[in-house]
């Protein structure tokens, strides 16, 4: 049997090497919120004529509006600006058409700033609620707070990895986080705990049958569930990679977040939650031993 638990420190170091830089960027440059959270307008158009993005920017400047205009394909532009009224939308569409020829609106989204703040609050609440429900469920299933705590720590790990990776991506490539990113975080949490429960189930099963030490039980359970955990993650990763390559631009951030989440979720279940449980058991056993000594 492979002694997985012997390399605890290495697993924790791997996690730290991802979380460390992630948290650094999270604290320094932070996440780049999309208009979902800040309010604003996202407008993608395709024109008939070749035109510079600067020319389109001037259209907005002429109306005293700050706008960011990026090319997003052939004769195609992605415009980000402040929240617009429908009358402004119609007027600007006309002005843009004067420069770029007849324009086709690929998408147009506008959100007031109030709604953004509200959404952010709701999103955070959803994450807290999901975490609480899962903690209670795991603690109830395993009749042991240690299991619940280990599962939550693994979930915290995954959340930090995801937020950190996207802080880095935001810093390097301007990747934004939106409502779907929050959805991806929640989905990751449920995946992560899914894997964690499978390993914990096995630990409990072996515990019932034998009197082995916790480390040995943890090793055996890890060995027995690792293949299934990897296989399952692989099938999910196959689907996500296919979506990432072929699924088109608008889903890329979401798919990317789910992919990062699946990888970290798989890792944290086996290599964080189980060793954490081992550490916990060791400490609580030492404590109880000391207690016995004192009694005598």
């Amino acid at each position, binding site marked *: 049997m492979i002694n997985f638990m012997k390399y605890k420190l290495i697993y924790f170091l791997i996690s730290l090497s991802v979380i460390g830089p992630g948290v650094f960027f999270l604290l320094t440059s932070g996440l780049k919120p999309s208009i979902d959270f800040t309010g604003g307008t996202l407008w993608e158009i395709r024109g008939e004529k070749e035109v510079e993005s600067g020319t389109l920017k001037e259209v907005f400047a002429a109306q005293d509006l700050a706008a960011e205009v990026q090319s997003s394909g052939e004769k195609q532009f992605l415009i980000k600006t402040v929240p617009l009224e*429908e009358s402004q939308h119609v007027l600007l569409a006309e002005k843009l058409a004067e420069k770029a020829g007849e324009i086709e609106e690929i998408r147009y989204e506008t*959100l007031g700033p109030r709604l953004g703040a509200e959404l952010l609050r709701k999103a955070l609440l*959803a994450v807290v609620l999901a975490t609480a429900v899962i903690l209670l*469920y795991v603690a109830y299933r395993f009749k042991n707070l240690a299991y619940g705590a280990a599962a939550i720590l693994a979930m915290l790990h995954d959340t930090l990895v995801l937020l950190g990776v996207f802080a880095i991506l935001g810093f390097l490539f301007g990747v934004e986080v939106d409502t779907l990113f929050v959805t991806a975080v929640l989905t990751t949490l449920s995946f992560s705990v899914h894997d964690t429960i499978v390993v914990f189930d096995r630990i409990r099963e072996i515990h019932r049958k034998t009197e082995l030490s916790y480390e040995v039980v943890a090793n055996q359970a890890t060995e027995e569930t690792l293949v299934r955990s990897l296989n399952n993650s*692989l099938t*999910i990763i196959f*689907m996500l990679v296919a979506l990432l390559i072929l699924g*088109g631009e608008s889903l890329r951030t979401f798919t990317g977040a789910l992919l990062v989440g699946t990888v970290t979720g798989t890792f944290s279940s086996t290599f964080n939650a189980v060793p954490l449980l081992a550490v916990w058991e060791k400490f609580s056993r030492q404590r109880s031993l000391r207690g016995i000594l004192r009694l005598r």
Partner: protein
Amino acid sequence: MQGGLQVVLEAQMDEVGEGDRQAALESAQAVIERRVDFLGVSEPVVQTSRLGDSYRVVVELPGVEDPAQALSLIGQTAQLDFREGDNLDQRTGLTGKDLTRASVDFDQTTGKPQIALQFSSEGAKKFAEITARNVGKPLAIFLDNSLLTAPIVQGEILGGQAVITGTFALQEAQQIVAQLNAGALPTPIVVLEQRQIGPTLGEEALRKSVAAGLLGLGLVVFFMVGNYGRLGLLATLALLVYALLTLAVYKIIPVTLTLSGIAGFILSVGMAVDANILIFERIKEERRWGKDLATALELGFGRAWDSIRDANLATLATVFILFNPLDWSFLVTSGVVRGFALTLGVGVLLSLFTGVVVTRTLVRAFYRK
């Protein structure tokens, strides 16, 4: 998926009394529904939601041809007015402003639903004059320039209280009342959020998602057969059953397939084989521990069940929070998030069935030495 418009509108309630706001919101909804019908969109959604002091109407119009026109139509404040004359086209000067409110009432003797109108003092004066000169003739009520109802005036009505009797079904009466109130409690509407997707993006995204789904499915099948041989082949069959069932469910509960919804579906295919992987790994183990094939097969299904159930319950809890079926206003009610939660949730439930029951049946029937 064919593109379309989604708007979140807020009804401005500053002029409406605290107690009438819910009714005013329902009226705004009724009026918007009426206007949406006029647009001829195939599967429109018009829902109300309330968050604190903010009264909202969410409108989804998949495949609408001209979103700008649709929006300007939806966003108008309701115009109610009373008309007379042979062709019912002469304005009487009595409008929604003069109407205090409308409500559903029941005839004391027959118990049939009827519509009660309450006019303001100025409205009562105008109404008395109008009814006096129109006895025996119809008096038409127009909402947004289209005819709502045209009851016959039975006699001069003084005092500003009137009832419209007729053979209304209760629901019909309620609907007319809501529309009358839209004129009585006019609420200007502002756009809080607007999302529109052109038909190109819709089509393109659909095509790409289908390609991605097929590629992913191919990889999963390849992997399962490579790893578990004949069992993997049976799992693939179960996966096909899963895909067909899912599509059938989408037909029954009309899911507006958003991009995120499609992502949820594609993801659920990856997860659908999870139960099979758990079971097959368990079977392998039982074989390793020296059980014969038939016993290992049965034990594999039996013993893997605990893990499968626990793990999927956790996912379902998350789906519940994301989908927010009870419309708790403190949680996300965004259509994008819901689309994802719905397809993921349907996926988890169906995959439990196909991954365990269907695969077991297939294995019992076909997996023999």
